[in-house]
């Protein structure tokens, strides 16, 4: 069997060497199709990362007009922390709030010159736990705090959160649909390119069936060839998308997302890079399989 595997591999490599133009056409098609998919994946992953980071900042701020004793504040914080939806409660004193405000003003800090910390209210910053960063959890916590007369001035981004969740859903659905469409398109294009290469070898395939070659024996070298071309195409797609990432995507996507507070644009994670190459191999293999069905026939049905 090992000897036979070597035979089929040698044949596949030789087929590729003997038809360099056809091989390059197949590799190029896989590369372009998968590079498009990779660009799209880079954009979706980065936007997803951005929206995830927005979710992390989700918090409820309960302003305290009259600041009670430190002990009382600590007991309130502990009480709120006991809610299952809440991850942590952070007390921000008037002084800390004023300092933050001054820092945020930067060069315009002199605007608050002469003012004291008493102009700003103290607050409790309530952060939600990872699993509860959604609209219903936020509403539940806010309702519970509202019922309590201690906290009547609550600030939270409910309307904004609704929009964020809708946007995330849209991104997920459209991402999956477009990604699926791109993979399907890549498969069809690759299958058709391989079909064209097989047209050129139609006589050869027919001659093989005439001397007793079984379907598998005839098809295997072409399947291996398709898979190899797909793997090379996947590798080229990775190279292409990395190049495009370095030259164009990183800058343009970076500029676009910078407004929203993200300063680093990431390339595809390692596992996605591996998937891109393996996916190329699979597309090549399936493309060959579909194309060969039509060409290796032993006689009239």
């Amino acid at each position: 069997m090992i000897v036979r595997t070597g035979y089929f591999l040698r044949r596949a490599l030789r087929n590729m060497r003997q038809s360099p133009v056809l091989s390059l056409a197949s590799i190029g098609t896989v590369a372009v199709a998968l590079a498009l998919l990779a660009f799209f994946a880079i954009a979706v992953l980065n936007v997803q990362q951005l929206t995830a980071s927005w979710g992390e900042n989700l918090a409820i701020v309960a302003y305290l007009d009259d600041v009670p004793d430190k002990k009382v504040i600590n007991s309130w914080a502990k009480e709120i922390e006991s809610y299952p939806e809440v991850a942590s409660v952070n007390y921000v004193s008037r002084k800390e709030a004023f300092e933050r405000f001054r820092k945020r003003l930067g060069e315009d800090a002199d605007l608050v010159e002469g003012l004291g910390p008493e102009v700003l209210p103290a607050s409790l910053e309530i952060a939600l736990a990872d699993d509860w960063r959604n609209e219903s959890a936020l509403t539940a916590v806010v309702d519970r705090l509202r019922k309590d007369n201690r906290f009547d001035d609550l600030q939270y981004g409910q309307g904004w959160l609704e929009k964020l969740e809708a946007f995330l859903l849209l991104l997920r659905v459209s991402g999956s649909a477009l990604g699926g469409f791109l993979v399907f398109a890549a498969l069809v294009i690759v299958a058709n390119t391989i079909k064209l290469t097989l047209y050129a070898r139609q006589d050869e395939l027919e001659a093989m069936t005439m001397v007793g070659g079984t379907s598998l024996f005839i098809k295997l070298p072409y399947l291996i060839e398709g898979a190899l071309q797909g793997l090379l195409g996947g590798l080229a797609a990775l190279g292409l998308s990395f190049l495009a990432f370095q030259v164009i995507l990183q800058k343009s996507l970076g500029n676009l997302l910078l407004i929203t507070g993200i300063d680093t644009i990431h390339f595809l994670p390692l596992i996605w890079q591996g998937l891109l190459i393996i996916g190329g191999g699979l597309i090549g293999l399936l493309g060959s399989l579909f194309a060969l069905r039509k060409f290796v026939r032993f006689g009239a049905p």
Partner: protein
Amino acid sequence: MIQLFNVCKVYQRDQYALRDVTLKVEKGEFVYLTGPSGAGKSTLLKLLYCAERPSRGQILVNGRNITRFGSARIPYLRRNLGIIFQDFKLLHRRTIYENVAFPLEVQGRKRFEISKKVYQTLKNVGLEHRLKHYPLQLSGGEQQRVAVARALVVDPLILLADEPTGNLDPEVTMDIMGLFKSANARGTTILMATHDRSLMREFPRRTVSLHAGSLAMDDLPLFRGAAE
């Protein structure tokens, strides 16, 4: 070796390529299949190597009924056959050696056995010095000798030849016929489609004539002595 019972082949409604053909070819026989173009010669050969299926009737090859052979069994039938075409059907991207070796490779023969057998067969057809060449570097006659070598390398039970000398000049035709005669002398049954009357006169053998798909004549050679 070959038996056809009331075989019909209809391609389109009421258009018979073969009509009620019953034929028996014994082991070791050399039979010419003749008739005008469109008489059904190629169709009959195609039925024997399962490129077509009969519309009616039964076909037995080497004692096995091949009438309803599925795709998976056809390759194994063809390993016992040598098939030769007018247009050679060689693998143009493979060397002469590789072309002749291919039928042995599909049978999973050992490499040293293949090289020995291929060299011997190419020597028999006088092309052992051309084994590293590619088919298109050879003349038409030489390409047909490669096709004959490819058919004979597996020591087939039956050799089916469809107008094998149709494109060749008389001298090369004699060479090819010489190769067929040797194979036949070694026990291979030969069924050869041709409409070359001079060839049939030169090498008289049993002749089966087809006309418009029907069996028109089945003659033994007039001069038996000449057939020997």
